[in-house]
């Protein structure tokens, strides 16, 4: 498709890009509103709503009681009447206190109604570790949310993705879980690595779910990952290139739907698959990606490696957390094992 491309110079942090998409949708549609803990005056503990209350007021940027069941469920009820609520789970780890509203109502009402009811809401959730917040505040739980049918699950890795995925999430008539990694947001007290701050078009745009993005092309190995670990994989790929190994890095961008085609296409080229994930190893993203490729292109696979959090809770102390959360060295080592 030939298209006039517009050069984009303006760079934003991931949080600014996310907020820009929400603000645009709120300006365009009175039915969009945001609910969460500390989202109004504070602007979101992880800057996910910074500045929205100032523009839209307390009625549309609602601080709520610490009652995740009540307000996530209220979002479900308002969505079923056609409003477009965004409800924020401050830490994804808090899902346990509200899981019925997520797993049994938000995810299933469309199906159980035979499609007569839809739930056009977004559930935002901060995910991830790397800052020593221990086992109840550091998980990603990607696999937990992607496991139950009925929710689309997206994970932006850069500001560019954060904006386009959020526009699509709010406009979608289905429930979308939007999992943003704390380390990528560009918060002053939680510095982001190089990478998530990108040029972001001022215009609104949508990124389709189920479209993985090849962030770096390579010939020898396919590294499939998401969220924070896109950046760690890119750094590993850069280092590996010095040693003559050419790694292709695929950013999933969404788990539901999963873009198996892009992964398989890459694996058919490279023959080797490394899946990198910040979720637990067992019954999670790494196993699912490997199984999906095996289903479709087993013959193309010369080798497979999984890099994930070993099956332990995320520990607190720095050396302990660093041990279990995959880092650049872990990714490089896994790639080298495939060569």
């Amino acid at each position, binding site marked *: 498709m030939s298209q006039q491309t517009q050069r984009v110079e303006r760079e934003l942090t991931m949080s600014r890009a996310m907020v820009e998409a929400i603000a645009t949708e709120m300006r365009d549609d009175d039915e969009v509103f945001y609910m969460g803990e500390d989202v109004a005056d504070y602007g979101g503990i992880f800057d996910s709503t910074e500045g929205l209350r100032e523009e839209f007021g307390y009625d549309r940027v609602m601080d709520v009681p610490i*009652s995740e069941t009540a307000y996530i469920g209220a979002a479900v009820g308002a969505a079923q009447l056609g409003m477009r609520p965004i409800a924020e789970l401050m830490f994804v780890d808090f899902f346990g206190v509200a899981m019925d509203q997520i797993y049994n109502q938000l995810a299933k009402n469309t199906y159980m109604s035979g499609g007569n009811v839809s739930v056009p809401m977004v559930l935002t959730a901060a995910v991830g570790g790397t800052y020593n917040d221990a086992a109840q505040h550091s998980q990603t739980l990607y696999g937990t949310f992607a496991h139950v049918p009925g929710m689309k699950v997206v994970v932006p890795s850069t500001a560019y993705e954060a904006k386009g995925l959020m526009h699509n999430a709010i406009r979608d008539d289905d429930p979308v879980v939007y999992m943003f990694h704390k380390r990528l947001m560009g918060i002053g007290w939680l510095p982001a690595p190089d990478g998530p701050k990108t*040029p972001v078009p001022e215009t609104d745009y949508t990124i*389709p779910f189920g479209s993985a993005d090849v962030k770096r092309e390579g010939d020898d190995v396919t590294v499939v990952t998401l969220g924070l670990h896109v950046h760690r994989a890119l750094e590993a790929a850069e280092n590996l290139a010095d040693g003559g190994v050419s790694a292709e890095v695929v950013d999933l961008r969404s788990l539901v739907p999963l873009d198996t085609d892009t992964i398989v296409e890459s694996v058919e080229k490279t023959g080797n698959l490394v899946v990198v994930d910040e979720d637990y190893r067992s019954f999670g993203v790494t196993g699912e990606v490997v199984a999906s490729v095996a289903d479709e292109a087993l013959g193309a696979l010369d080798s497979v490696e999984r890099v994930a959090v070993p099956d332990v809770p995320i520990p607190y102390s720095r050396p302990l957390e660093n041990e279990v959360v995959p880092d650049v060295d872990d990714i490089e080592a896994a790639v080298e094992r495939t060569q």
Partner: protein
Amino acid sequence: MVTARHYEERLQEEYLEGKQPAFDISAGPIPGELHLAAGHEASGAGVCQHLRDDDAVTAPHRPHHVAIAKGVDLKRMTAEIFGRETGLGKGKGGHMHLFDPDVNFACSGIIAQGCPPAAGAGLAAKKRNTDSVAVAFLGEGAIDQGGFLESLNFAAVQDIPVVFVIEDNDWAISMPKDRVTDIENGSQRAGGFDMPGVRVDHDDAVAIYEAAGEAIGRARDRNGPTLLEVQVHRRMGHFMGDPETYRPERDQDAAQARDSIERLAADLRAHGVDGDELDDLRADAHERVEEAIEWAKDQPEPDPEAAYEDVFVNPGSGVTDSEPTFDLAGGDD
């Protein structure tokens, strides 16, 4: 009320077909569990008389009497209960998960978890500045659930036009309420949330109608939420097949004797309503129920392939299939 009663009695007959003499839950024309609401009719009718189609209702796992009172399409609801293709949920929901968006009726089979969506429906009415209201129905066994208590607080602090209706039939499956809570009157829970709490005793349709009218009027006038508890009776087991061995005979006898429908009929006659008129009303209700059941049984079962549909209403990709092209300076895209 008579429609709801006859409906439950007829469903009981249909349900047990093929499940006797040895009860086999997986046999017979109606699949799955069945929680019938005979003895709850005064609640559904007394409350829903005050509601319009644009008012939202959530019902729990025992929803039929509420659905009927709210005006849910009886034929399609029955087809859903029989698991048929033309059911409200195309056979994917069943009797605990009835959704009729035409009259804003929804269910949840999970105890107390219809309360938050009802609060959300009321919140939507408030945000849209309409005079619609929402009502959540729940059983007395649900009043110890976090989802209920959180919703009371959320509704109170946000001034949401919602009414929570506790249907107190004394039993949470086998658990009598005095063994799970130290309060006799569930509406006392409202006190902790600075919300009016009202209880209606004696399974009295007129008293329920009056109390509900006040609570719903209060919500419609934007004066905040109300917690209403109404005494009803469980004339059948928790679910069909429940032997009720835990339940004293005198309790069941009392439930049978305290029949809100017969008492209402006697009241109406005492107030000069013609007995023939009441008979006609019953006959019409029976006919409507028979028609719905006959229609439902004639409906086709779903094509097995339909199991793969309706997980989402939009394509998986969301509202777009393609990504625009930008030249991102210095970016990695």
